[in-house]
Structure formats: C-alpha cells, structure tokens
C-alpha cells in the first residue's frame, strides 16, 4: 500500500491554494497518493474558470497581494492550478468536493473544474485520512 497525504482544502485564497498545490506536487513526486477534500472556500476556488480570475490572498496579508502576483509573473512561477495538474500527471491525486458546501452554494459537479473527481461527504474523507501518513487542514 502506498503512503498517502490527505488535505482538507478549506481556503480559497491564492496563497493557501499555492501551499496546498505545492505539497500535492511534492507528495506525488515522492510517490505518495494524494487525497484532497474541497470544502467551503476551497469549493469556490475550483469553480469552472474561477482560477483564471482569482487574485484573492489571505486578508491578513492583503497589502502584499499585488507584489506577490508581480513577483510570481516575473519569476514565471507556476500557478497553483498548474501545480495541481502537474501533480495529477505524475501521481495519483484524488480530488473530492464536499456535498454540503455544493448544496449550500447551489452547485453541481458540472460547475467545477473537470479535475474534481467526485462529490463525497466527510465520512469518506475521514476514512482516507485515517490511513494517511500526513493529514493537513489548509
């Protein structure tokens, strides 16, 4: 059985998404399975095409937002979506969306990026998390 990393992705700001996506890439490169459970603002970030216009960063550091974006463009750093797609190419990355949040926001699986695999509830996530070497809440 491969080792696994499980992430509850609760945040929808670019800085947090970047952190989660880099960890996913790293884990996939280390031959670990990656489980990502999208909930609340994390669902918002994975709405179709939302990543193209999402420039939000954690409000505590909002004043750094534009500088960070400029630096990332200048240094040609991959976006968080590119990281996730890259992780999926090299490894087993499973992305599930929280049924409760989808219901609250009035969304279906079709409203999300095609990289999202399925809708599940929190019990399915817990079952995967309990078998994980690393569990994170981001």
């Amino acid at each position, binding site marked *: 059985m491969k080792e696994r990393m499980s992430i509850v992705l609760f945040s929808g700001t670019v800085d947090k998404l970047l952190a989660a996506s880099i960890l996913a890439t790293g884990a996939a490169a280390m031959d670990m399975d990656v489980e990502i459970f999208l909930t609340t603002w994390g669902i918002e970030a994975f709405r179709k095409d939302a990543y193209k216009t999402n420039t939000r960063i954690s409000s505590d550091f909002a004043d750094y937002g534009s500088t960070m974006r400029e630096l990332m463009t200048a240094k040609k750093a991959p976006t968080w979506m590119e990281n996730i797609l890259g992780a999926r190419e090299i490894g087993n990355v499973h992305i599930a969306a*929280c049924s*409760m949040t989808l219901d609250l926001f009035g969304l279906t699986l079709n409203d999300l990026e095609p990289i999202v695999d*399925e*809708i599940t*509830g929190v*019990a399915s996530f817990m079952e995967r998390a309990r078998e994980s070497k690393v569990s994170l809440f981001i």
Partner: protein
Amino acid sequence: MTTQLHVDHFIDAKGMMCPMPIITLKKMWKDVAPGQIVAIAATDQGARRDIPTWAEATGNRLLETNEEQGVLTFYLQKTA
C-alpha cells in the same frame, strides 16, 4: 428496482445534509438488533459514498442501494 428485503427500521434522512445522515444512522444503531435490516433514504450527494464507507468502517453489511428520483436508499444489515 424493487427490493424484497424485510426492513426492520426506516430512517428518513431526506433533506439532511452531511454529516447528519451518518450521525443519525450511528445514533439509532444501538437500538438495532443483530441481523436486523435498516433502510435509510437520503438526498445528500455525499451519502452515495459516505454510507457504504460507514458500513465498511463499522463492520456492517450494505445489502443494496437504490436510486429513485434523486433519493438514495441504502439497505444495511447489522453484523457488528
């Protein structure tokens, strides 16, 4: 698909959102005798995976799953 199973308890979890269907299931489980069959109807899309996962995690048996007009019905037997 119609089921021939004899249902001992029925839980109407329609309209309940995650994680309430499995919590309701867990809480009523102590009143279920071994071998008895419980049917639970849910509309939460997360239940599709959560209830089978719950059954496996708690060592109980999922006998059958039906879906009719957006309502998922799971038939579970108490084996643990």
